[in-house]
């Protein structure tokens, strides 16, 4: 266990706050369960061909998501990558609109233009899922720069996968943020696999949080299967960022399924899979709550039914939502209208053909 990780060990609940702490855990569980059921429903809709393209699920990442977002204020900004449905839902965006985006409908958070990898919602300050690995990292850094430029007190959280720490944009961004003292928390979701490549096979320094040292940036690693631990670690990171010092937080998480819904993950052994299931954060938290006498099995089932109702309604909402009309194809090319854009469907000529002689005569 590294010194940094020690420093982020969950603090014991204060003696008189047991009930409040229990309520917080129940809240975490409800949120984690919603993410779990939402992603399962998503997988089903994908197999039913309601959802197209790439589709990456947050299964196994629920505790990390809930812990991270708990530490954010509503005015803070979140940039994330293409595995972001759970972040969108947990950030408070209506699951109906998240599912509608997956279905490519007009009620989707990105109006059907983004899909699974590109959820965006200005009101909830989710400034994007991004499909290009690492693409969000300079952008998030720039958002922090804008906050700093204006003297605001918001911070930016930028999550990424473990594989992202090897690309140039990661290092360039951390360097800029440290140089310019930007209010940003970089979060590495280390689920130990970049698609099928292990962290050890791709990163010469596999303790990824240590990479902050190159930029004299404070950093820590935390157990991503424990939402309480993640929340506590994130609070420290966010406080640092709000004070104008960027922070690098590594959250060691799990990916219960393949890289995407179409990945059977054959590169994992049965033993590894069994181990993953044994450490699944959602049932683990349920067991913890039951063991502590906070929730009964009946209450757990009721919470599950509620989550299932929400995601089923989301699927129905998405299916009922209209597909974008093809006439809107050219609505979002430019924010400032400009001449000669050439709103032209593929078969259209650049210039209309000259009329035929008989048309001229008539």
């Amino acid at each position: 266990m590294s010194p940094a990780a020690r420093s982020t060990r969950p603090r014991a609940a204060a003696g008189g706050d047991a009930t409040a702490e229990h309520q917080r855990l129940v809240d975490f569980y409800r949120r984690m369960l919603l993410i779990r059921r939402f992603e399962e429903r998503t997988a089903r809709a994908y197999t039913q061909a309601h959802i197209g393209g790439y589709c990456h699920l947050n299964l196994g990442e629920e505790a990390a998501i809930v812990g991270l977002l708990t530490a954010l204020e509503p005015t803070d900004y979140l940039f994330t990558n293409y595995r972001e449905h759970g972040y969108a839902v947990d950030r408070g965006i209506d699951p109906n609109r998240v599912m509608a985006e997956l279905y490519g409908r007009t009620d989707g958070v990105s109006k059907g233009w983004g899909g699974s990898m590109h959820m965006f919602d200005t009101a909830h300050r989710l400034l994007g899922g991004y499909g290009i690995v690492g693409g969000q990292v300079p952008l998030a850094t720039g958002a922090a720069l804008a906050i700093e430029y204006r003297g605001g007190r918001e911070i930016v959280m930028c999550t990424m996968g473990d594989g992202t720490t090897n690309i140039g944009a990661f290092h360039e961004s951390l360097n800029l943020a440290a140089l310019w003292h930007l209010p940003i928390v970089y979060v590495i979701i280390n689920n130990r696999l970049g698609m099928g490549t292990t962290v050890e096979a791709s990163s010469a320094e596999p303790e990824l949080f240590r990479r902050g040292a190159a930029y004299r940036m404070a950093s820590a690693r935390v157990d991503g299967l424990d939402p309480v631990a993640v929340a506590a670690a994130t609070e420290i990171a966010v406080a640092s960022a709000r004070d104008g010092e960027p922070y690098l937080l590594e959250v060691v998480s799990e990916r219960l399924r393949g890289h995407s819904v179409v990945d059977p993950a054959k590169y994992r052994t049965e033993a590894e899979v069994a181990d993953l299931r044994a450490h699944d954060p959602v049932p683990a938290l349920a067991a913890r709550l039951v063991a502590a006498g906070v929730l009964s099995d009946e209450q757990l089932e009721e919470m599950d039914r509620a989550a299932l109702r929400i995601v089923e309604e989301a699927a129905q909402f998405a299916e009922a939502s209209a597909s974008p009309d093809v006439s809107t194809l050219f609505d979002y090319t430019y924010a400032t209208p400009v001449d000669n854009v050439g709103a032209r469907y593929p078969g259209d000529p650049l210039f209309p053909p000259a009329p035929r002689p008989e048309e001229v005569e008539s």
Partner: protein
Amino acid sequence: MAIMTYRQALHDTLRDEMLRDERVFLLGEEIGVFEGSYKITAGLLEEFGPRRVRDTPIAEEGFTGAAIGAAMLGLRPVVEIMTINFSLLALDQIVNHAAKIYGMFGGQASVPLVIRTPGGGGQQLGATHSQNVELYYAFVPGLKVVAPSTPADARALLQAAIRDDDPVLFLENLALYNTKGEVPDDLPPAPIGRARVTRQGRDLTLVGYSRTAHVAAQVADQLAASEGLDIEVVDLMSLRPLDRATIVASVRKTHAAVVLEDDWLTYGIGAEVAATISDGAFDDLDAPVRRVAMAEVPLPYAKPLETAALPSTDDVIAAVYQTLDAVGRRHVKVGHD
């Protein structure tokens, strides 16, 4: 009205826009303390301070991406990339992000960003520092690409670019920085996406942009004096959106065109212009559209090789003669001799 260099026009416009709008700030390599590799930003650090004139590390992807992110939150950053060659390091941020964010998120966030960067060869800078890759950006919907050729256009289009809510790649050229021209005092922003006929003519249309618009005007003047030719010049000014209507209207009048480009021929800007002419002025063409572009090699260092690879005025004149010859204007001589 003042006569000033292209460089001065850029400098003054940046300054004026920063004075006008607090959201406008500059960032890039060596723009502050060093005052810019080409001294466009001279004096601005002193005047505006490091918050608004921000020197960056050598990290084109990082600082360009950061500018995009800042623009998403409503600032109006103006990035200087030292030469367009280095913009390739930021290609992912420009093409995959700046160009996509408005559309990909259903119009929820725009990117009011300007990337200023010069192209140009002919300075014996070798293969990696002499490219003209504006095409890479002009190819991408969501980006706007402008390429002014005169100090006045530089001012008018830079104003427009900074005030535009979309990412604009503002193409400069090393050979243009010291060129002079009149710049009216109260010049309004120029509309992006429009070309201009800078010289009227009947015999042939020369199409250029940025430096090549100068070459076109020069060739037109020269051939008017020596051969009595009446050549029309179209300055594209914007590479995206491309003002196809102006190009086509000109060729419908002249029936022949030669397109000048500083990039490579194959798949180049001229190819798009030629295709546009073929579509819009097919029945008006009396000869195939000619293109004059850089030789298709990595640009060599040795001067004679470099010179041979770059399109010269003589190359343009030869193409004009050959085109006029093809339309039956055989009183003009063909070839260099």
